């Protein structure tokens, strides 16, 4: 708790120091939608993120302005298991608990990632996909603990859940920016944290954060809620539907045959 507090204070301090030292540049953000409704025919969604840079002073003539947009789904711990060959067959052997990994993570930048953000700034703001995953408790006795964290990134990248999209943010006159983030069909519910970072010469000069709400609606919401809150009724309902469908098909075929 104390660590968290001091970290918070540090960030606050850094933020104030930043804005005092540099010419003030703030993000004014717009979203095409601040909620994603998961309906029965949900097949992924594209969110348009656009905005402008508000400043009181002229555009600084130092390094050009770059923009990074990240969208992160709700984070949860993940157990990663590795298979090994034992007695001739492949079985799960070692496992590592990754403390926190977002269910979805997309990073869009206005240029090549290394040019837009320095390594130390990446470490501080946890921007890149690898940094967004936290794995503190990796046991020392397991060889190649880093492989496990890499595996999370690799597997989720293959599923389209994690992505780095360099040079997909369009910046106009160092003032207007916009990008589109594709969200796949296999989304989970929750608050999706959306961050916009403005950088110059790899240093973050301004940060803005908002939340996109991803929720099931209508029938999806109803069924999901029922299954959690009234599991017994939900189970009975499933069985009744199953029996009715079975009887219905049988009766229909009987009619067809008698005709």
């Amino acid at each position: 708790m104390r660590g968290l507090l001091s970290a918070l204070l540090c960030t606050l301090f850094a933020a104030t120091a930043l804005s005092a030292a540099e010419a003030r540049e703030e993000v004014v953000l717009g979203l095409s939608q601040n909620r994603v409704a998961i309906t029965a025919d949900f097949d992924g969604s594209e969110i348009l993120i656009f905005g402008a840079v508000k400043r009181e002073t002229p555009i600084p003539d130092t390094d050009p302005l770059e923009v990074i947009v990240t969208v992160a789904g709700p984070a949860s711990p993940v157990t990663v298991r590795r298979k090994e060959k034992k007695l001739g067959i492949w079985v799960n052997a070692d496992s590592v608990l990754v403390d926190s990994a977002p269910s979805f993570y997309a990073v869009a930048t206005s240029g090549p990632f290394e040019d837009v953000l320095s390594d130390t700034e990446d470490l501080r703001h946890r921007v890149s996909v690898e940094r967004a995953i936290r794995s503190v408790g990796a046991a020392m006795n397991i060889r190649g603990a880093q492989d496990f964290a890499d595996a999370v990134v690799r597997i989720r990248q293959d599923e389209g859940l994690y992505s780095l999209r360099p040079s997909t943010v369009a910046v106009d006159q160092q003032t207007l920016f916009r990008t589109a983030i594709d969200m796949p069909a296999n989304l989970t519910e929750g608050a999706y944290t959306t961050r916009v970072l403005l950088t110059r010469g790899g240093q973050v000069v301004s940060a803005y954060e908002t939340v996109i709400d991803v929720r099931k609606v209508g029938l999806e919401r109803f069924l999901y809620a029922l299954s959690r809150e009234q599991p017994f009724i939900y189970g009975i309902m499933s069985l009744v539907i199953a029996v009715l469908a079975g009887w219905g098909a049988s009766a229909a075929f009987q009619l067809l045959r008698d005709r």
Partner: protein
Amino acid sequence: MQIYLPIAEVSVNAFLLLGLGGMVGILSGMFGVGGGFLMTPLLFFIGIPPAVAVATEANQIVASSFSGVLAHFRRRTVDIKMGLVLQAGGLIGAALGVVVFNHLKELGQVDLLVKLCYVVFLGVVGGLMFIESLNALRKSRKPGGGAPVRRQRGWVHALPFKMRFRTSGLYISVIPPIMVGVVVGILAAIMGVGGGFIMVPAMIYILGMPTKVVVGTSLFQIILVTGFTTMLHATTNYTVDIVLAVLLLVGGVIGAQIGTRIGTYLKAEQLRILLAIMVLAVCGKLGLDLLIMPDELFSLGVAGGH
């Protein structure tokens, strides 16, 4: 047409699910197996989370088996008494299976257990059935052979607590049916299947029931076991996806009707040899997966839930 499944939390093609349901339904009606041993791996393959696939599959089997069993009721090929005795064993087995399942889940070895179960049981059952039905087929081809009705008088008939099963024309001890029920119940809980693929051969070879009655009785018993399993999964793991189940069972019940009709046109031996081939094919595929080095050595699991 894509459809988002509320519990599985993935979006899949509705027609793909209808088609899968139909295909498996036909096999289910033909052989009197629930089809779970085919459907569950297929669902994994199209990206449904395993826990949801196993639970939902149980619910879908209820529908296709119910559809199939009605046709058998009309033909009076269901031994209800035998079904209930098997079921008594089945409930004990299901409870045991859940205990084993939960213990191995903590160790992260459920996948392995499920696959090993599949390989061992499918291999043994498929192999025995294939050899036996091949022999039977050869005998019936011989002119004047005329399939003799063999009445085995083995250990099954030496046990106490005898009971008369009129529909099957049997007078045997209740111990073997209950034992068969226990084994199938354990498998149903662990593998997410009705257990028809092991029940059918066990009825024929261990209990000596006539093949005609076996399919209907097996379906009848499967309905009870999978109904119980569905409730168990729905109330403890919340993993029954009703939308997925409906899509699968619409295809499944229609397929089961077609399958039952096809089944009546085939000879018992032919039916058995086809089922044996299918069982062996699934077994081979799963066995290879265990032996060949997988492309991805790592797998992700939900942490917590101790």
